[in-house]
């Protein structure tokens, strides 16, 4: 992009700046756009689950203008700050949540080459940033100054912090099977038929996916774990005092992290941008057969990723509108007594499986490059791979 712009614009820094802006714009557009679609989808799915239509009047028969209408309404709302609120922190909290939740998309690859920042420890980065989003919620809860929002914030903190542990363990299993934390490599590794997907790699990763789904729903604070804004007990938890754009910032953060978690699940377990059937290979949409083919391949990859991400979001919404809410102690016991042991067990199982699959103890002396791009066990493999780059 920058080389292309350099031919036209004569002050080079303008070209660099413009290129950076275009990249950021594309990424943010995807995320904010998907948040708007999520808002509309949530109402439609809720309607369908409850045997009613959902929005059908705003903008045509399917109410697709509902999200912009909501956005406009929220923008026009009065900007209220409670009297005994800590105004600096109160104003600042939603943007921390928003920032943390959108920062995850820096490391998430949307297709083979379309990734904002090719981080080597991408999976770990997404986990770290996902943990940050709760900071905005806690700050919002505390700064609102009312007992109810403090209650909601404390519950949220306890829940998200405790669910980071099993979430980390669940992400560890596919990373260990793939041998690298670089999401692009993990995605490419699952190329080909859907049997290559990591979820079908061995029974342990299959179980890990389901534990991952539970922990993801819990760490993103969606029903049945949405204790923070449990409307029946805490009115609206930490969101009680928020209205207007700040409220919608919190909701964009929630939908953003829902999308991030779904993309992560897609890449780690469902082969990311590789479709169930290797069409890209059949039609030769590879990077090496020219830029246009590469571009089309990436586009197909993006379509796959969006399909899988939206599937994840639809499942989360579907769960929300059918299940009641758990109590705070039940949420924490599911984490401590069910998710963590299960995740640990599958981790050990997956480790044993990959250890045996790689020929057990004598894995060291076979050729290091049995599978391209995948670091094999044993020191020599590592060394060879690092030197060869």
């Amino acid at each position: 992009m920058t080389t292309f712009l350099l031919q036209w614009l004569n002050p080079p820094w303008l070209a660099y700046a413009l290129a950076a802006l275009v990249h950021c714009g594309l990424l943010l557009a995807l995320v904010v756009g998907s948040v708007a679609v999520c808002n509309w989808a949530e109402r439609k799915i809720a309607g369908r689950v409850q045997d009613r239509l959902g929005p059908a009047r705003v903008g045509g028969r399917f109410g697709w203008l509902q999200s912009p209408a909501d956005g406009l309404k929220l923008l026009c709302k009065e900007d209220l700050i409670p009297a005994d609120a800590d105004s600096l922190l109160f104003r600042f909290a939603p943007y921390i949540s928003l920032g943390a939740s959108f920062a995850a998309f820096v490391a998430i690859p949307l297709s083979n080459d379309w990734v904002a920042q090719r981080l080597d420890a991408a999976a770990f980065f997404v986990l770290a940033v996902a943990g940050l989003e709760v900071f905005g919620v806690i700050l919002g809860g505390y700064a609102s100054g009312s007992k109810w929002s403090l209650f909601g914030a404390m519950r949220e903190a306890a829940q998200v912090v405790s669910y980071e542990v099993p979430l980390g363990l669940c992400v560890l299993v596919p990373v260990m099977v793939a041998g690298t934390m670089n999401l692009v490599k993990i995605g490419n590794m699952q190329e080909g038929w859907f049997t290559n997907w990591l979820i079908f790699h061995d029974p342990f990763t299959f179980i890990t996916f389901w534990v991952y789904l539970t922990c993801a729903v819990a760490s993103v604070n969606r029903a049945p774990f949405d204790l923070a804004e449990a409307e029946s007990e805490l009115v609206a938890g930490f969101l009680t005092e928020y209205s207007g754009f700040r409220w919608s910032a919190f909701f964009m953060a929630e939908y953003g992290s829902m999308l991030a978690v779904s993309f992560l699940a897609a890449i780690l377990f469902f082969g990311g941008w590789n479709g169930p059937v290797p069409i890209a290979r059949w039609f030769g949409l590879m990077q090496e057969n020219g830029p246009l083919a590469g571009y089309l391949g990436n586009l197909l990859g993006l379509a796959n990723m969006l399909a899988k991400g939206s599937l994840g979001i639809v499942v989360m919404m579907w769960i929300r509108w059918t299940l009641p809410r758990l109590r705070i102690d039940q949420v924490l016991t599911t984490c401590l007594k069910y998710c963590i042991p299960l995740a640990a067990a599958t981790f050990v199982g997956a480790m044993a499986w990959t250890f045996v699959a790689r020929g057990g103890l004598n894995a060291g002396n076979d050729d290091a490059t049995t599978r391209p791009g995948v670091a094999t066990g044993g020191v020599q493999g590592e060394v060879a791979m690092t030197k060869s780059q």
Partner: protein
Amino acid sequence: MNPINWHSCFFLLAAAVACAAALGVVASKNVVRMAVFLLHALGAVAGLFFLAGADFVGAMQLMIYVGGTLVLIAFGVMLTARRPFLSMDTKLAQWIAGTLVGGCLLAVLLRSALSVDDWAGPVSAAPRAQAEDLATAAPLGMGMLGVRVDRLDEPEAARREGMSGYLLPFEIISVHLLVVLIGAAYLARSTRPGEARLRENVEDKINAG
């Protein structure tokens, strides 16, 4: 006009944020604001790590320091920040002593930083590019297993010599920390004898009351 050196530009930005937040921690009165500024300082340092290409360490900083401090804030500061503890007004004497000690430490750091020769001149943007692929987490893992990561291209013997790997001490420390954590949790737990007894405690007090 050589192309803008984005790297140092962002470096200065992150460093500025870190210093400003650190000053914020010292200067602010409200305990919770102090903690929030601390978080921003640590976040900016994580930004510096990412700029230096150490993604793993950057993510680790984000998760451990910022996440850990986050929990500290949520449960340590916010729950206890009742009226008496909320504002910490430092007196003038403490200010003077603080700036004195801080100044000396700053001077020592600056002197030692400037003494390193290749840090003195402006950093060129060049080395950034090819460091791209080396910045994987693999050397960290190998270092733990005892491989001399800095002498990778020498013969087999040189790679192993003088390093027994620090995986074992690493594990011992982590188990040690786990034991400490459980002990602390055990000591802090209330001797509340479980809900059942609590209930009849409340009962007979109320009936008697």
